[in-house]
């Protein structure tokens, strides 16, 4: 007979394998490292993170200034990914662009999780009127489809990286508010929370020790997947002409817009820049899906 010694904060399921469970995070990490697509995704992300950090060291050219004699050179030789209309090296600009995309993506999702998480936690923990009011606010934000909300905010606050971060964060916040509130409400009724309450645990202790760690798993999964969307949305804003105010900035979306006017002559710029954006998104999507499976073993498909 298996004695139920699973640590608190984890549903008491008796696993069929004889292996001793060493806690949710340890198990999840082991499952994640066995998941090949997730590992591929992780490798892709690491490559882009490395590119972003090392850009000034490894980039072959100057991201902002180019020589006009080098304009619109196809890939090859000194320029493995060709050059653009101003004669700037495309590879260099993609490497520097990774800095903006990753930074803005991570900061905006982080900010979105924090804002949404706070709203969701307060709504889920207090319930009642507070819950109703907060959720109506969330409904209003959710009623404006994703990138349109971001467009509105950037137009309103004027162009600039902090504004873009805030705009994308604002599109993410309501999603996380709903998610956290939903998990907290469901957890309130769960056996181990009832058990903790019945042995006299204080409300903060129940919230921080028992409820939040359990609600956190779904937030982590959603945040990873949101990173993919955030990076696409940031590029989308740049594509619509709402990128960083300096038009020379090496930002992936802005690079695409610049390339569209002459893409018949220089299709490689859109190809390589598009590949960079898509690959980053693929990386985060693969890791997000892997995390989902790793953190919730019941979800096999």
């Amino acid at each position, binding site marked *: 007979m298996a004695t139920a010694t699973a640590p608190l904060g984890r549903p008491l399921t008796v696993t069929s394998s004889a292996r001793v469970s060493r806690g949710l995070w340890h198990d999840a990490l082991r499952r994640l490292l066995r998941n090949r697509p997730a590992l591929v995704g992780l490798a892709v992300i690491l490559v882009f993170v490395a590119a972003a950090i090392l850009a000034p060291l490894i980039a072959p050219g100057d991201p902002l200034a180019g020589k006009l004699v080098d304009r619109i050179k196809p890939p090859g030789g000194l320029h493995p990914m060709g050059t653009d209309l101003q004669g700037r090296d495309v590879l260099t600009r993609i490497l520097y662009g990774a800095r903006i995309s990753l930074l803005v993506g991570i900061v905006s999702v982080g900010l979105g999780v924090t804002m949404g998480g706070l709203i969701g936690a307060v709504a889920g923990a207090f319930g009642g009127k507070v819950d109703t009011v907060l959720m109506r606010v969330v409904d209003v934000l959710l009623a*404006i*489809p994703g990138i349109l909300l971001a*467009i509105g905010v950037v137009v309103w606050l004027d162009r600039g990286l902090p504004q873009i971060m805030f705009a994308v964060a604002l599109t993410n916040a309501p999603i996380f508010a709903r998610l956290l509130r939903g998990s907290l409400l469901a957890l309130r009724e769960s056996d181990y929370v009832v058990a903790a309450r019945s042995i006299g645990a204080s409300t903060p202790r129940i919230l921080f020790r028992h409820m939040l760690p359990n609600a956190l798993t779904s937030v982590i999964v959603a945040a990873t997947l949101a990173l993919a969307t955030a990076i696409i949305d940031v590029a989308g804003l740049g594509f619509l002409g709402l990128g960083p105010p300096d038009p020379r900035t090496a930002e992936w979306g802005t690079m695409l817009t610049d390339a*569209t006017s002459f893409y018949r002559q220089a299709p490689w710029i859109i190809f390589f820049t598009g590949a960079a954006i898509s690959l980053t998104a*693929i990386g985060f999507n693969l890791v997000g899906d892997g995390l989902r499976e790793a953190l919730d073993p019941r979800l096999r*498909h």
Partner: protein
Amino acid sequence: MLKYLVRRLLAAIPVLLGLSVVLFAFVHLLPGDPVAALLGQHATPELTAQIREQLGLNKPLYEQYVIYLGQLLSGDLGKSVINNRSVVSELALRFPGTIELTGAALVFAIGLGIPLGRLAARHAQGWTDGVVTVISLLGISIPIFILGYTLQFFLSVQLKWLPTSGRLDPRTHLDAVTNFMLVDSLLAGRLDVFVDAVKHLILPAIALGSIPLAIITRITRAAVLDVANEDYVRTARAKGLSERRVDDRHVMRNAWLPVVTVIGLQVGGLLAGAVITETVFSWNGVGRYVVEAIQDHDYLVVQSTILVFALIFLAVNLLVDVGYAFLNPRIRFS
């Protein structure tokens, strides 16, 4: 059922009010002098005075809001600062294009997504499943503008199979009746124009439909797999029903609910995606209207269009929920 509908309609009112406050704030709390910000480089003394008058900026804020709300309720969405055209009439002119585009994208996503999802579920963990998983991963990961330009470059520019942009060949003359090209061409009895309009639709619809395609495929696969393990499916098989009958009568009928919900949820994404798709394919719809308004700093137009998009989004969500309640009695009575 009626009670449920009324309850849902009442619940939409605070959201709409909240939305109007947010959008009111959007224009009236623009940093700095709102009129200067609204007009930007178009500011002239006369225009500034006119806009100030139009927005009633001399009155207290709450009074301005009440006036704004009154205008909205009477269907007045304001005028463009640039060309003084009414937003409502511009939207009426351009919405058919957006509806045609999003409709075609949805048809593509559903028409391909559901069969792909069922196929993947039937061969779960096999290579077909793997291929379908990769397709849906690419669908959600490749941004619309990149897929759009890639399709355009290979299929239109290089192979010349399909037109690059626009809704019709520019040389065609067609009397606008409904502004739905597919309808107008048939009304005029021009089958060649109809075919041309369909050809123009294909690439934008694929680009825009790629994300919902990926999501619908995934959900269908998961829903079918969920149901496939149910007792009644095993029973149906055990009593000797053909595989096809089990699939149609026992699996799909129960797998529909999550699939229908997710299809409804795609509408918001499609509207947002239309903004980008229409820019890529020079498609004359509401999305391009917004982008042009952004470039012209025509903020009143941006504000009003976002409001209309949100309204549509809420209306569609309501329809989906009502349809869902209709299909699933458990929701209605909760």
